[in-house]
């Protein structure tokens, strides 16, 4: 009973030794403990074990390092054994200067590439090809087929053609195209009338006077638009004061 307890304590003492020393000699030391405890005395062996523990950690620096080739026995299964913390060994030499410079340059290049990809503010940057390069350099998807200026006849509501999703163009082209598509959809819905605020309404209003439907809502909007384009705060207030809000149908 006493021997088994002291043996367990001695084994624990051996376990506290540096890994390299422990793996090489712990079993032999334990076997000696089993044989010599009666003749040498348990206390003497424990004292020797404590001195050895201090010596290996404090004096013997080489005991703390364990070559990976020795640490990992051949055929040891799984990565768990290999990546145990005690199997790692830091190199004793420092990296040469050119290696530091090489690492710094590579890091800067990588960070620059990430910055270019993400762009300032987290938005996709506007590349020079978007401004002056040939159109069609960036492939767009899920966008109806159309030339760069668009056409009023290319919108087929609800039934996109087979080739409607193969257009190429810049992001700005796609955005403008989507706006025109929305405009055409609204025009079809209201009967070929330009919708105020939309792309076609602005284009058409530059050449001819704006036409609004001859309805109460259209008249109210025309009055507000006139006040708005006049740029006067007073006229805007007057317009809002004279605006009649239709009564609820309830």
């Amino acid at each position, binding site marked *: 009973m006493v021997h088994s307890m002291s043996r367990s304590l001695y084994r624990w003492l051996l376990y506290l030794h540096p890994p390299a*020393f422990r793996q*090489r*000699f712990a*079993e*032999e*030391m*334990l*076997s*000696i*403990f089993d*044989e*010599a405890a009666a003749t*040498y005395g348990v206390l*003497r*062996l424990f*004292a*020797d*074990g404590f*001195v*050895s*523990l201090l*010596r*290996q950690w404090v004096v*013997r620096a080489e005991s703390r390092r364990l070559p990976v080739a020795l640490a990992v026995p051949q055929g040891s299964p799984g990565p768990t054994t290999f990546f145990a913390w005690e199997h790692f060994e830091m190199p004793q030499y420092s990296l040469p200067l050119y290696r530091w410079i090489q690492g710094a340059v590579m890091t800067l290049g990588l960070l620059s590439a990430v910055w270019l990809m993400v762009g300032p503010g987290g938005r996709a940057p506007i590349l020079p090809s978007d401004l002056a390069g040939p159109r069609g350099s960036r492939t767009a998807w899920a966008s109806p087929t159309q030339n760069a200026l668009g056409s009023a006849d290319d919108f087929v509501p609800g039934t996109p053609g087979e080739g409607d999703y193969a257009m190429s163009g810049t992001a700005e082209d796609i955005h403008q195209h989507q706006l025109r598509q929305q405009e055409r959809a609204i025009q079809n819905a209201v009967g070929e009338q330009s919708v105020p605020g939309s792309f076609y309404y602005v284009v058409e209003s530059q050449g001819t006077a704006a036409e609004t439907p001859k309805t109460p809502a259209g008249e109210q909007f025309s009055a507000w638009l006139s006040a708005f384009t006049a740029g006067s705060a007073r006229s805007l207030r007057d317009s809002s004061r004279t605006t009649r809000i239709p009564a609820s149908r309830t």
Partner: protein
Amino acid sequence: MKLSTMRFLPLSPAALHILLALAGEDLHGYGIMLEVARQSEGKYKLGPGTLYDNLRKLMTQGNVEEIQKGTSGGDPRRRYYRLTGLGRRVLSAEVARLEGVVREAKANLLGTKPRRA
């Protein structure tokens, strides 16, 4: 050859006793401890920690090597160690050095050596 042995000298008492124990025959760890105790007539006893710390150093230096030896009937945890040729030369050089130390000590202690003015 002498230069290659001189760099290991002087040996520590533990290393000297281990080499002396292994000079006679190949031994395992506990056998070395018993042989050291016998050679010193029980006045010097190596503990396992001291023994294997010195064995490790001696093996690194090439003075001692581990050998494969059958442990028929014995403890399979035992490993046997042998003195190498280099270790034997180192031991011889250390013994020669100690002979000079003993000679000088006797001369001083017995008063046969003239003192300097």
